[in-house]
């Protein structure tokens, strides 16, 4: 069974690779390469897989999941300029794809014993664009 928890964070980013020239970044990312950055209201959906515990009826304690998401994702990401304030985005372009991978890396250690299991991370940059990462 899957349970999905949705949270939001707002952050700014600039889609540029520091190894490329200004011109190359503009060609690759268009207006999203503006070095001053721009922002989004991101929505994160985290899917956890497991069986309901026979005593509690829960796949996972949602208070605990909320605390993990707050500590490992919302606190570091919310109201930040990702390129400057949130490693590894000083080196890695903060595209939606890379954000999903980074969030997975931050969350995975909390699910190491495999019960419940981290199944998927979905990041919406806008309502019309999202990515899914399964590790």
């Amino acid at each position, binding site marked *: 069974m899957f349970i999905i928890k949705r949270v939001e964070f707002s952050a700014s980013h600039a889609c540029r690779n520091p190894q*490329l020239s200004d011109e190359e970044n503009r060609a690759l990312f268009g207006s999203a390469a503006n070095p001053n950055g721009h922002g989004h209201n991101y929505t994160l959906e985290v899917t956890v897989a497991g069986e309901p515990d026979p005593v509690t009826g829960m796949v996972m304690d949602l208070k605990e999941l909320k605390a993990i998401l707050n500590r490992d994702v919302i606190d570091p990401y919310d109201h930040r300029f990702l390129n400057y304030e949130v490693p590894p985005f000083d080196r890695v372009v903060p595209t939606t794809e*890379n954000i999903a991978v980074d969030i997975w890396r931050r969350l995975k250690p909390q699910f190491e014993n495999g019960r419940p299991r981290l199944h998927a991370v979905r990041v919406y940059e806008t309502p019309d664009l999202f*990515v899914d990462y399964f590790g």
Partner: protein
Amino acid sequence: MIRLTRKYQFAASHRLHSDQLSPEENRETFGKCNNPFGHGHNYQLEVSVRGEIDSTSGRAIDITAFDRVVNDHVLLPMHHANLNTDIEEFAALVPTSENLGRVVDRRLREAWQSAFPRGPELDGIRIYETERSIIELAGAR
């Protein structure tokens, strides 16, 4: 592997009617959707691709090129169109959401290889006829 999904809208009209059924059978099978004058929907289309993240761009796909393929092969022909009369695949095929899904999927798959020879792969599509009525083809979640 990462999956990226983009959402699009198009508005089109259709009439659910099969020439292989009698007028009575058509009314029975399709109900209000068989109204001879047709009716319309604001369709939403989700297209998912799957692939690896390019280390230079940090992207799994060039979004502009992605939009262009969907625009050229689906949105431009289907937006503000009558599916029964304006889309050739529906000359002899009932334009239900299920068949629309097959047609859209086939159009995208035919265009995909030349547009994205080095990937990513087309993963699947989802069509919302209304907020409450949704079909899904292949890998799309």
